[in-house]
């Protein structure tokens, strides 16, 4: 390997010169390569000052030089006549003519000769002498000049295209007629589209509407068709699940006795809610496939954002609407008559109304600190019938012990405290004799289906209060229901006197509101989170516990 020979070639090429230069030729409208690239590299330049003898400047310089060379020999001969010169100098002063005369005047022959010879050197000498007389000294300097560097740049020529057309009366006329026809067609299509949209069934073949306008309108028109197609694709994918949804009947149910089967049908997931807990779920009363899910966090230390996400069963892969908020959502409720309005309660005590028809992600109306929001998380909100002025109103219950009725008056949420939950038996006595009322913390409530004024409130202390909207300070009745917080109360939709309550003390109790003791008690061996009556049977209810059963 050491014996390998490496050949090195010395070329005369400039290593810094580019190898291919391209110039744009306007004549041919293309880029053409230059055939020969300059290989000269300049290392040092110095501007010389040699002047050719034959040029003007050269000749001038020669003349000057010859004059001075003539002066030299003349001077040597003029030495003896120096005296005369000095004499002449003194006497001459300025003018040379006067000097000449004086020279002649001074004259001995020698002096005259010398003077004649002097004439020619005299004016030259005079120049020199004059210069010296005025003490001119030649001095020259030159500043450092920056070395020059060549730099070239070439922009890209602007792109061009050509067009050819013909303008004529009949062409213009035809164009106008065509345009008018198009406009009429589009008007007709709009009229026929409107009734079709109302009759739109869920399954419709994706028809891409023809767009007559410019390109920017295409996207908005396709969005509707794209939505329908997305739903169709999802239903085709999950077709067997949709079949199960409608017709599920497990034959093995007969043999299992007490246990039934619960088939999980769809899983609705959304990326942005991954870290949040589902805190509330509610079905839309009008659109049976739409349901809203509220996201928040039960953990006091982990309060972050909240979201409301609405899914439809027709499209299980992506939510229909998403709203986000700064505080976690605790509960939500759809309005029965206005299915696009949702009341929402937050962890920070605010309530808000979201309008689904509007495309903004902000609530339409929102309570604020000065408008009487709760100071504790709002556990439940429920819509009421419109009051006498046809304003929407809803109730909310929260841990700060107040039940507040919110009314939507002239685009603002107005609150009225309906009732304060005072925990009986815990009024404290201050030394001055003041009595402070401790407020209990409300956790859930429910309104009677028939008697509108009557409602039940469950508290964290385990008591259930029966209250009426007309009495704001007094309860109608108190039930010592549970040992721990009451998580949910609910009236039976069919037996008007019966209600059910569940609590973290592992029990579910069924009551008759005229009797103080529960009629039935179910012990479920773990804390019960929520209980609900079945809508079609008066004796069936469902309960969920914290161990997942």
């Amino acid at each position, binding site marked *: 390997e050491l014996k390998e020979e490496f050949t090195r070639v010395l070329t005369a090429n400039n290593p810094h010169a580019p190898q291919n230069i391209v110039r744009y030729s306007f004549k041919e409208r293309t880029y053409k390569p230059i055939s020969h690239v300059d290989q000269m590299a300049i290392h040092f330049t110095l501007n010389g000052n040699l002047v050719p003898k034959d040029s003007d400047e050269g000749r001038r310089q020669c003349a000057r030089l010859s004059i001075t060379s003539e002066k030299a020999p003349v001077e040597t001969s003029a030495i003896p006549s120096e005296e005369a010169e000095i004499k002449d100098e003194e006497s001459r002063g300025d003018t040379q003519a006067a000097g000449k005369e004086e020279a002649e005047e001074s004259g001995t022959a020698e002096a005259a000769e010398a003077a004649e010879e002097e004439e020619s050197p005299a004016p030259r000498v005079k120049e020199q002498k004059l210069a010296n007389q005025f003490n001119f000294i030649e001095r020259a300097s030159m500043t450092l000049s920056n070395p020059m560097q060549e730099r070239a740049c070439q922009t890209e020529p*602007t*792109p*061009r*295209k*050509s*067009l050819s057309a*013909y*303008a004529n009366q009949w062409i*213009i006329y035809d*164009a106008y007629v065509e345009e008018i026809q198009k406009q009429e067609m589009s008007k007709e299509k709009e009229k026929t589209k409107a009734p079709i949209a109302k009759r739109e069934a869920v399954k419709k073949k994706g028809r891409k509407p023809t767009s007559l306008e410019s390109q920017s309108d295409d996207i908005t028109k396709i969005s509707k068709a794209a939505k329908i197609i997305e739903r169709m694709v999802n239903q085709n994918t999950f077709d067997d699940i949709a079949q199960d949804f409608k017709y599920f009947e497990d034959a093995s149910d007969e043999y299992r006795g007490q246990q039934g089967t619960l088939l999980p049908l769809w899983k609705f997931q959304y990326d942005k809610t991954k870290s949040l807990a589902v805190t509330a779920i509610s079905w839309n009363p009008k659109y049976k496939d739409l349901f809203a899910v509220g996201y928040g966090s039960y953990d006091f230390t982990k309060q972050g954002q909240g979201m409301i996400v609405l899914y439809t069963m027709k499209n299980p892969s992506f939510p229909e609407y998403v709203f986000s908020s700064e505080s976690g959502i605790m509960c939500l409720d759809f309005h029965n008559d206005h299915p696009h309005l949702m009341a929402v309660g937050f962890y920070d005590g605010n309530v808000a109304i979201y309008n689904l028809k509007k495309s903004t992600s902000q609530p339409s109306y929102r309570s604020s600190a000065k408008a009487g929001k709760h100071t504790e998380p709002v556990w439940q909100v429920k819509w009421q019938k419109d009051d006498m002025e046809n304003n929407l109103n809803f109730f909310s219950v929260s841990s700060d012990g107040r039940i507040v009725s919110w009314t939507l008056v002239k685009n603002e949420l107005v609150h009225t405290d309906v009732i304060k939950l005072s925990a009986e038996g815990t009024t404290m006595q201050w030394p001055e004799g003041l009595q402070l009322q401790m407020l209990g913390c409300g956790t859930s409530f429910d309104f009677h289906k028939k008697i509108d004024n009557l409602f039940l409130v469950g508290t964290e202390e385990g008591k259930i209060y029966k209250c009426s909207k007309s009495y704001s300070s007094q309860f109608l009745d108190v039930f010592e229901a549970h040992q721990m917080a009451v998580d949910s109360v609910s009236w039976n939709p069919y037996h008007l006197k019966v209600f059910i309550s569940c609590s973290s003390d592992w029990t579910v109790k069924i009551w008759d509101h005229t009797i103080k003791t529960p009629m039935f008690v179910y012990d479920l061996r773990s804390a019960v989170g929520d209980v609900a009556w079945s809508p079609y049977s008066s004796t069936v209810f469902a309960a969920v516990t914290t161990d997942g059963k």
Partner: protein
Amino acid sequence: MADTGEGKKEEADYKRLHSFPLIRHSDMPEEMRVEAMKLCVTACKKYSTNNESAAKMIKEMMDKKFGSSWHVVIGEAFGFEITYEVKNLLYMFFGGNLAVCVWKCS
């Protein structure tokens, strides 16, 4: 007489219906196109008898607004073959019988 009366009415109708500005071919970005169109309509209405002054007005305004070297042709019957800078062309009809072609090429 009735025929000519009808003919006149038709003509008036045609003029009314067909006088809106109709873009035949356009290569400009949206706002530029709208401005150029408005400018052409204004100029043609102002100098309805004199195509040259209308063209002059359009060309000078376009030069001021969008850069140098615009070219404008207004007429009722002409053919053309032009080279234009991309995204700087407007060819439209107006007034039922006028054709306006505006392009930039420096």
